[in-house]
């Protein structure tokens, strides 16, 4: 019996592998670098983070960071906030902001942050003061409001009949470090409540806990 060569036709396998690679490459979204490392507490909840989300990050020192998904929405939001605080942004800065990630500083300092490169940004992030949430200078409240407005306008443009599906509407997530004082988190939640927003997704790590048994 002649020894058949051990090589086999790998073409279909390669086809499949590349198909999957392409699929995952296109569907996966890379997380933008996070300005602060936050270690959320663990829970047994299995709910995944929704798609369109306004994310508030709170670190151990109580600094507040803001993030919102969606290029057009971000741009729109920044325009409105800029007019309100009389800060001017260039067209290039708008474009860079649209693809940026989380940020945490007063609006005045934002242009410098947008202009900075990655290395400089990490430096700024270390000393950033977070978004002001005092009652006198409550910038977070404006970000929340304008972010919500921008998201709603975006939905109106996509669904002119005004019936955006539930999963397309913006949700509110809070990611806080386990060692943060709850008062800081509560302050942020109260700002949302003033804006008539009551439902939140609190980001947690998964821990292995079985279902309740009596």
């Amino acid at each position, binding site marked *: 019996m002649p020894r058949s060569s051990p090589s086999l036709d*790998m073409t279909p396998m390669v086809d499949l592998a590349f198909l999957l690679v392409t699929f995952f490459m296109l569907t*996966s979204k890379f997380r933008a670098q996070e300005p602060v490392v936050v270690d959320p507490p663990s829970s047994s*909840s299995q709910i995944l983070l929704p798609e369109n989300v306004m994310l508030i990050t709170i670190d151990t020192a109580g600094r507040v960071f803001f993030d919102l998904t969606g290029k057009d929405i971000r741009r729109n939001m920044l325009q409105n906030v800029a007019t309100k605080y009389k800060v001017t942004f260039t067209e290039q800065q708008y474009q860079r902001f649209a693809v940026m990630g989380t940020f945490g500083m007063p609006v005045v300092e934002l242009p410098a942050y947008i202009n900075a490169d990655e290395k400089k940004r990490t430096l700024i992030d270390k000393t950033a003061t977070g978004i002001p949430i005092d009652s006198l200078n409550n910038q977070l409240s404006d970000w929340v409001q304008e972010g919500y407005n921008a998201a709603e306008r975006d939905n109106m443009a996509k669904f002119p009949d005004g019936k955006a599906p539930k999963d397309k509407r913006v949700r509110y997530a809070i*990611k806080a470090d386990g060692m943060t004082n709850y008062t800081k988190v*509560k302050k942020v*939640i109260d700002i949302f409540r003033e804006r008539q927003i009551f*439902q939140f997704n609190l980001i947690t790590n998964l821990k292995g806990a079985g279902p309740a048994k009596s």
Partner: protein
Amino acid sequence: MADVSTGDDGGGKKGKKRPKKGTTRIDMTPMVDLAFLLLTFFILATTLSKPKTMEIVYPKDVKDPDDKMKLNFLLANTIILGEKDNQVFYYPGKFKLDTTQLEHVDLSKDGLRKLLLDKNKNINEAVLKLEEQLKNHQLADSTFKRLRSKTKGDDNAPFFIVKTMNKTKYKTVIDVIDELNICNINKYAVVDIADAEKIALKREIKE
């Protein structure tokens, strides 16, 4: 010589050497390696990047839970979270500075979980029954979800008020809410501690 290569039999006789027609087969192993490496990377990267969350609804008005308490104190339960990690206290019903005794519970399985399961026994059993029915395919998924939320929102279900101090850690709050979720308790609210309760808490910690 004697061995004849299968590729060009007869070619040698004419004297003209035609270039050997190479097979179109190339060694694809490195490419496959690379493809699967990328595949693995993307699969892992996508599933890991979606964090888990816990959904919570806050009451519309700060005074809301207190109003509810006026309705039925028999169903009211309060959990007070102190400033240190393991300072979790519990008392049932209405708070009275003189008579209310705070009960220290810990966040272990035999502590808070046992207490909550005990308080929520009826609801919990009903939910377990529904889960059993779902397992045996007696219930459709949508019906199960509807019935479960109906059971959890029952009028006679006990409700829990979680009270926090100024320096309570976020982790403790999440731990307690998680326990409430595990024990199928749907009615809860997180509010600030009252002054009278602060006094009772101080008394308890000193002891």
